[in-house]
């Protein structure tokens, strides 16, 4: 936009400001002078507003639907990167490091008896959520 256009924009802004400052009686008088039908204009404007509200509602609904259909993000990816053997070793290490947490697990889980790989990964993810998983390099957390 060049300087002359900017000047015209600034003038338009002031014209609009002055329009907003005009009293109802002045607005009505101007409308009459210009042959406007205030009631009909208002009805059209309300219809445009109703369309705007419907459009906004549709967008909101579409966003909600998209959120519902989106696959749930995996809770913890780190433990899934371990091999089943590494996962079992990590679980054992975690239970040794946090005996309090271990007491809350089932006997099978505490002794790693009869747990499927999926069970082991699941427990690791729960422990990770609780912040009880040791760092991946095997060092104990300080």
């Amino acid at each position, binding site marked *: 936009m060049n300087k002359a256009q900017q000047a015209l924009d600034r003038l338009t802004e002031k014209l609009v400001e002055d329009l907003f400052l005009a009293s109802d009686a002045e607005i009505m008088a101007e409308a009459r002078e210009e042959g406007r039908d205030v009631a009909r204009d208002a009805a*059209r404007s309300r219809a445009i507003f109703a369309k705007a509200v419907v459009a906004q509602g549709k967008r909101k609904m579409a966003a909600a639907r998209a959120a519902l259909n989106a696959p749930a993000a995996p809770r913890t990816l780190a433990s899934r990167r371990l091999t089943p053997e590494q996962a079992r070793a990590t679980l054992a290490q975690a239970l040794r490091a946090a005996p309090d947490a271990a007491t809350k697990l089932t006997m099978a889980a505490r002794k790693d008896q009869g747990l499927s790989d999926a069970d082991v990964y699941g427990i690791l993810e729960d422990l990770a959520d609780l912040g009880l998983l040791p760092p991946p390099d095997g060092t104990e957390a300080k």
Partner: protein
Amino acid sequence: MTSSPPVRAMRPPDEIRATIEAFTDLDWQRVRRAAEYWARAHGADAEDVMQDALERAVDGSRQCPRDISIFTFLSGAMRSISGDERKARTRRAEIHLVADDGSLVVDPIDDRPNAAEAAQSWEAAEGIKQAVLGLFENDLAAQTIVEGDMEGIEGEELRDLTGLDAKAFASKRRLVRRRIDRAYPKGWKP
């Protein structure tokens, strides 16, 4: 020590919607006419501009500070929507070329007008500017208001330049608007 600027309170979209729902016929007349001003200034359709602004108001994509009236807020939205539309209209198409080796070369969009276009556009706008000032040839106060508005001179400073008191200034401003309305019913066109 630096202090962070105060947080500006915003109107929630539901409140904006309720305010608009309560508009009287004359409130709608104000909004409609503001849409016409902006649409004409930028060569857009007034009802499209109004609908877009209303959508942005109720969906919260454009925020309305509490210290600004809903009318001023809607006018700002309509100004930016109509301005964007003008920019989109003048945007050039992207050019795709195939090079000798068969690869695709994309000539990116260059929105900058060339020198001739820029001069022409400046000339047109400058011509309108002068013609608008010419509407008030024999009215120095009115001409000062128009010139001051174009230059961005605000409030008291502008009123001082006209030498008018507050009431006379407001009345002169009204005269300016009405004369421009009559001279440019279809917007800034030579």
